[in-house]
């Protein structure tokens, strides 16, 4: 991964850079699978390697294929990136070890979900209780997002169909 990023920085052919960023996304997805974030990995592969590569190619069509050499050296962005990265690494030092049962996420609310969810929500399935009752508003928002996406797809599909009908009428 580090090698890929270094290559992206060094190269000047923008098309190669777009392809390498796709490869980087695939590598990142593999990495997420290794640390058990399968859903995150899947999103990374679909958005990073799929959609964003295509969007970058669209941008490439508009602005040409080679990079313009900047007039002056830019030190400040590098500094900001290094400082932010250092802060993030520093933040991970406090985190509990991976899969540690003493981690706060397993001590804070999980015992209450396990012990009291039946009495509080009278939903027999624990996962359903968390999703539909404790995180009800969150789930409502997610459902709204998915519903909107579905409506969007339906509208696009119906437009294609309408267009075809119009072409048929024109031909006739």
């Amino acid at each position, binding site marked *: 991964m580090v*090698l*890929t990023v270094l*290559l992206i920085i060094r*190269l000047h052919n923008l*098309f*190669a850079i777009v*392809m*390498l960023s*796709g*490869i980087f996304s*695939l*590598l990142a*997805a*593999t990495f997420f*699978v*290794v640390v058990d974030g*399968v859903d995150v*990995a*899947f999103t990374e*592969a*679909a958005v990073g*390697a*799929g959609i964003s*590569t*295509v969007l970058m*190619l*669209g941008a490439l*069509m508009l602005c040409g294929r080679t990079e313009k050499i900047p007039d002056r050296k830019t030190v400040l962005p590098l500094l900001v990136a290094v400082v932010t990265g250092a802060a993030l690494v520093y933040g991970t030092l406090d985190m509990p070890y991976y899969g540690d049962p003493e981690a706060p996420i397993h001590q804070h609310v999980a015992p209450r979900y396990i012990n009291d969810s039946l009495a509080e929500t009278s939903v027999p399935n624990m996962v359903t209780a968390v999703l539909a009752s404790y995180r009800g508003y969150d789930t409502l928002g997610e459902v709204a997002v998915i519903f909107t996406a579905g409506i969007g797809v339906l509208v696009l599909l119906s437009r294609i169909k309408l*267009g*075809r009908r119009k*072409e048929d009428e024109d031909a006739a």
Partner: protein
Amino acid sequence: MMFAAATAALCVAMLLALVRALLGPTLFDRVLAVNSFGTKTVLMIAMLGFLTDRPDFTDIALLYALINFVGTLAVLKFFRYGSFARPGGRAQQGEGE
């Protein structure tokens, strides 16, 4: 042991694909390199599933294969026609409306 060896071989193959994406003289070399890299990712995820005794990762790997296929097709179509609409179809006419 066998899976570990296969994973190591996959790593080497991924490196080779990366080199091709980097050197690739033509555009299609690079597209092909990304495509084969995606295939290697699919295999890698399946291998990791077997290495960690979770064969259900194979399903996820299959989904990656689908994404990879559609993505490569999209990129190639983009280069052939300059847009994702059908060639010579409604999109060009639609812009005149």
